[in-house]
């Protein structure tokens, strides 16, 4: 194994990363149905018994996959997501009134996350304009004779993402569909922690193929890999 230099001080241990998490925090997470969610960070937050989190991400995974673990063990007080369908426990907690859920259409949700990451205030879209469950409580405006919904930007105190490779500057590349929301979530965190399968030396990534520039990544930790069984492995 090559000894990796750490000139930017971004490479850290899981313990150092976990020091950033505390109760009542807003945490944004990468992943789509658990694919591309950072397993060790989620397990670590779970083990630290951090409660009352506000979680922002595409969905609530499956009960024992991805962010689903935190949700189904009651660690979140609020979730902002596009669906919770694959995690029945999330629905149960919502119906019991112990979990607040804010839904956005999926495309709108990821644009809101991107807007936060890009320093914008909001985006205007007409998706959901014909649906009171989407329009409720939101500003609308006219533009060239057409109506739009104002969908506000989302940021988080900490973002957690999963990537295939990082270099010491925090440049990230992803693997196949595990990219999904990760590049967006990486930009939207006030402090972004990337859990990665491999750390390569500076210059070890092709500058053309870097998807998330390291400027958006504050900390990099090496992953032990996924510690759950996928749904399709259980069948």
């Amino acid at each position, binding site marked *: 194994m090559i000894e990796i230099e750490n000139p930017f001080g971004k490479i850290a241990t899981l313990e150092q990363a976990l020091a950033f998490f505390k109760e009542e925090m807003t945490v944004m997470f990468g992943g789509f*149905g658990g*694919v591309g969610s950072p397993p060790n960070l989620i397990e670590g937050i779970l083990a630290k018994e951090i409660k009352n989190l506000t979680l922002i991400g595409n969905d609530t995974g*499956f009960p024992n996959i991805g962010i689903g673990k935190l949700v189904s063990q009651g660690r979140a007080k609020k979730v902002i997501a596009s669906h919770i369908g694959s995690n029945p426990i999330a629905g149960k907690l919502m119906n019991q009134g112990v979990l607040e859920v804010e839904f956005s259409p999926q495309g709108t949700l990821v644009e809101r996350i991107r807007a936060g990451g890009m320093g914008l205030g909001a985006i205007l879209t007409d998706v*959901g304009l014909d*649906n009171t469950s989407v329009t409720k409580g939101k500003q609308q405006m006219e533009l060239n004779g057409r109506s739009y919904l104002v969908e506000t930007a989302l940021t988080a105190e900490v973002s957690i993402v999963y990537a295939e490779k990082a270099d010491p500057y925090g440049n990230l590349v992803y693997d*196949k*569909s595990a990219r999904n929301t990760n590049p*967006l979530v990486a930009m939207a965190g006030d402090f972004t922690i990337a859990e990665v399968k491999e750390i390569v030396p500076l210059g070890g990534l092709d500058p053309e193929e870097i998807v998330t520039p390291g400027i958006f990544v504050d900390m990099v930790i090496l992953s032990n890999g996924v510690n759950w069984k996928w749904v*399709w492995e259980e069948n």
Partner: protein
Amino acid sequence: MASELDIRNLMAKRAAREIVGGMVVNLGIGIPSLVPNHLPETTKVMFHAENGILGMGPSPGSGLEDGNLCNAGGYPVTIVPGASYCDSVTAFGMIRRGRIDVSILGSLQVSRQGDLANWIIPGKKVPGMGGAMDLASKAKKLIVLMSHTDKKGNPKILEQCTLPLTATRCVDMIITDKAVFEIKNCELVLMEYFSTTSVSRITAQTACRFSVSEDLKVIEV
């Protein structure tokens, strides 16, 4: 009588006829996922997934699954030559920009004017809309594949949907286990029906008026 799977495949096969080479197609879960099996191999179609794949291929063989290569439902897929990966925001940009030629979804109800209700059963299932609203309102052509009636025999094609809507006036075609309808200018038109049923029985099982195409066809089962 045709088995459940046969009927589902008949519906998928009929939907496949709406797809021509070069199209970008997004498939929902359930019956829509059977559609690719009914496309000629020479028809080059780019299947789109909301998580960030353009150019999905068939499911991998058992043991060849890759946990990092899954469709929007979380199940393993493969890719075809010319495929690309992107982030989810770009995947939905493709939808919102109107670059999806055909979206094929399941549904709970569809209204005579093409309103879609497929995301929520109040008091029972509140799973969130996922990408359904984006796809329903922005795909160039929206095809609904669903059973003609629910498990209790209640019609799913209605004057007005009783369930909360996903999007209004978005459905272009309905393919059920009984018939094929088109919705043109907010008017429901019966285009085809399966030889296992009849126009009068379809009328009885449909809770709204519809017109019958002058070119009405029967699909032999």
